[in-house]
């Protein structure tokens, strides 16, 4: 057993403007250890990892690598030390090949042909099947992650940093990833595993450091610590179980897709294939699936950003509208909360008041072509109050709000237009836990009031927590939605991986 830590951080601090992202953080990772860095969004995990990887320089604090003090000036220096990192958002160039991508991450000097041979060899050793000559834009999300991991492995790392690696994988792929990480650790490589998923950390990690508000608030051995204890450390208070809301029995369909097929309009997109679904008044329908399996295309086709070939392919509140645009569908009672908040759900440069007009052009706020800004301001203030949006007032630019507050404003705005059906895409992505709970409550309340809700998310835990029925999108096709009580994570995982169910599910 070695006693010199592979990585030893002492008193790391980093400030961005008014935000203290890291405040005197200590972190120690031993050789061959799989160490979890635990914390909710905004806890300072990303900043700390960027410091370790040399992307960002700390304002103060020391870094020791295998006992010696080091300054990690840039990612090249980090790699030279033996630090590899797999980012949550992949660092891949879509139009380049796998080998070219990996070459860019390595030093100069090796021909693409020689490198390709090495890639194939390492890939075989760790069970990471991928073709070095393929262009990245042809690869699935899971394959892309393998490319990222291979890029690190080819440099024989002694510390591998994994940033939220499982959020894009099917449960079965997660098992494969864990097996690979355990093998790597057994060979002596340390792993710094960043996540907020407690079950995973308990299954995989040897030790854990918990961050909150930029500080270390505790450390533990995950296998020996109850999840509720870790959750409390992470959030800073006990989590109340969501109040059960009595929901009326689901009513008639308010949103239907009937044999909806649509070719992608993006060279890297997914074609939709014969989608059938119905969202009933008062229910929450969830769409699960690995990113890039047609979610973007399905949302565009349902909201009317892209038109279907036939009028009857999409039905909103009983009216066929497949050939009608987003504004027309909104008039029928369809509201949408897109995944991208700034740039799609709202315009960053405009004030909240002006943003309120984005989907409110049909109400009484526009008269004779002129905008009633006073009325608009009242509407925006109403949303801010009702949804406890933290903002410097209705005239604050959208860009000045935090992600969670902007999301609350957008949901509030859509709810304020009294829709019959609401489509929400990744409603709590990148939002802190408090705002996420508020958003889930708002969606439940909305369903309870008789609105049909459709949620598209890659976060299975989220879907299982709030949905009544779940369907799975794979390769542009949707499995028949099943009541949550009649399915389980294993089954959904297989569907996400593209395994076609015998009998039951597909016979519906």
């Amino acid at each position: 057993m070695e006693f010199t830590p592979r990585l030893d951080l002492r008193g790391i601090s980093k400030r961005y403007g008014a935000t203290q992202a890291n405040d005197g953080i200590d972190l120690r990772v031993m050789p061959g250890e799989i160490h979890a860095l635990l914390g909710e969004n905004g806890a300072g995990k990303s900043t700390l990892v960027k410091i370790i990887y040399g992307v960002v320089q700390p304002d103060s604090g020391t870094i020791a690598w295998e006992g010696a003090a080091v300054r990690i000036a840039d990612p090249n220096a980090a790699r030279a030390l033996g630090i590899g990192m797999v980012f949550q958002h992949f660092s891949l160039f879509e139009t380049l090949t796998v080998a070219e991508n990996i070459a860019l991450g390595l030093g100069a000097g090796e021909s693409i042909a020689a490198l390709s041979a090495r890639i194939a060899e390492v890939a075989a050793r760790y069970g990471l099947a991928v073709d070095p000559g393929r262009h990245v834009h042809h690869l699935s999300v899971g394959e892309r992650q393998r490319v990222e991991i291979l890029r690190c492995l080819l440099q024989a790392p002694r510390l591998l940093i994994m940033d939220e690696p499982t959020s894009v994988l099917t449960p079965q792929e997660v098992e494969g990833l864990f097996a690979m990480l355990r093998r790597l650790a057994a060979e002596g490589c340390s792993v710094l595993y960043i996540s907020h998923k407690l079950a995973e950390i308990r299954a995989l990690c040897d030790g854990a450091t918990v961050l909150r508000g930029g500080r270390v608030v505790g450390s533990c051995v995950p296998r020996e610590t109850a999840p509720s204890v870790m959750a409390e450390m992470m959030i800073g208070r006990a989590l109340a179980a969501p109040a059960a809301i009595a929901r009326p029995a689901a009513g008639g369909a308010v949103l239907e897709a009937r044999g909806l097929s649509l070719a992608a309009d993006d060279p890297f997109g997914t074609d939709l294939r014969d989608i059938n679904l119905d969202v009933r008044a008062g229910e929450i329908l969830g769409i699960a699936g690995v990113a890039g399996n047609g979610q973007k295309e399905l949302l565009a086709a349902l909201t009317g950003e892209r038109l279907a070939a036939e009028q009857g392919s999409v039905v909103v509140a009983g009216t066929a509208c497949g050939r009608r645009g987003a504004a027309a569908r909104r008039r029928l009672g369809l509201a949408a909360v897109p995944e991208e908040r700034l740039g799609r759900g709202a315009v960053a440069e405009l004030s909240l008041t002006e943003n309120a007009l984005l989907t409110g052009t049909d109400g009484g706020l526009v008269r004779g072509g002129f905008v009633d800004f006073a009325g608009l301001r009242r509407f925006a203030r109403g949303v801010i109050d009702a949804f406890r949006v933290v903002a410097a007032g209705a005239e604050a630019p959208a860009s000045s709000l935090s992600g969670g507050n902007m999301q609350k404003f957008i949901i509030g705005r859509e709810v304020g237009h009294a829709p019959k059906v609401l489509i929400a895409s990744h409603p709590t992505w990148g939002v802190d836990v408090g705002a996420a709970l508020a958003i889930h409550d708002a969606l439940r309340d909305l369903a309870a009031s008789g609105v049909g809700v459709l949620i598209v998310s890659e976060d299975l835990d989220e879907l299982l927590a709030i949905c009544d029925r779940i369907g799975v999108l794979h390769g542009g096709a949707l499995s028949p939605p099943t009541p949550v009580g009649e399915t389980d994570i294993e089954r959904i995982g297989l569907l996400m991986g593209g395994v076609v169910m015998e009998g039951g599910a597909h016979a519906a």
Partner: protein
Amino acid sequence: MRLERRAAASGLMGVLAPVLAVLAAALGAALLFAVMGKDPVACLHTLFVAPLADATGLSELALKATPLLLCAIGIAVGVQANVWNIGAEGQFTMGAIGGGAVGLWLGPEGGWFVLPLVLLAGVLGGMGWAAIAAWLRTRFNAHEILVTLMLSYVAVQILGWLVRGPLQDPEGFNFPQSRQFEPAATLPLLFEGGRVTIAALFALAAVPAGALLLGRTLIGYRIRVVGLAPGAARYAGFSETSAVWFCLLLSGGLAGLAGVSEVAGPIGQLLPTISPGYGFAAIIVAFLGRLRPVGMLLAALLMALLYLGGEALQITQQLPLAATGVIQGMLLLFLLGADVLVLYRIRIGGRAHG
């Protein structure tokens, strides 16, 4: 030295940046004069002050500011929708051709309807020319920057052909020019003794109209959303196609109005060259005026002053007319540089960053 992003765009710097740019351009101009062996102070005086000394100068200022302002307002509305009509020069030319052709065709025929027809033909000429770009952009995805610009070159050649061919003055000793327009086809002067026509009133009226359009109407709001966040526009169901058509027709029409107002006003006939680059200088006016109508009014006056001063420099200091172009170019370059202060503050020294 490094840049630090501000939490929000600085309104003060938004106003100050154009002022800084003008000062820097004046300094650059002084340097240029010195390099060319002239007295910088005398030259600056000739450029910026002397033209404003008398009534004639002020009237000439209004005369030159008129086409600049008309073109700039159209360009600015487009830029807000991320529609870059940089071919206002071509629409200006086609407006002149359209209005001029109608005026010449009606000939000595009098009547109250002649002038409105001439103006209408000018507006339609500019709109039609811009409509080509709108159609090619919305139907074939061809970028309007290149198309409007190419069409400018084409328009100038067409004008060159017309004044040497179909519209040439038969009694003009084979000079490349048309007949003089009849009085009925000519814009009335705003006041006797000057050359300013009622076109200046059109330009002045376009200022509040533009401000109202952008600031108070749903159309203006849609235009801004399409320009700032195309994704949000698609989400909201605001059609990019309509925005492109609206912006190009509007700016083409305004440029056409400017063009016909020049030939049916101070010029009085069709010539191979009818613009000292108003359509291009209007791009500078649009940016210098912060794309806001009131700002553009001030910027158009300044740019008109540069034209007048440039002419004066040619006469009194024997400087080539091209000096105006250099100063105009510097002005825009400095403005774009100074604009960094709107979104960033400059920190001297301080920490290194990754």
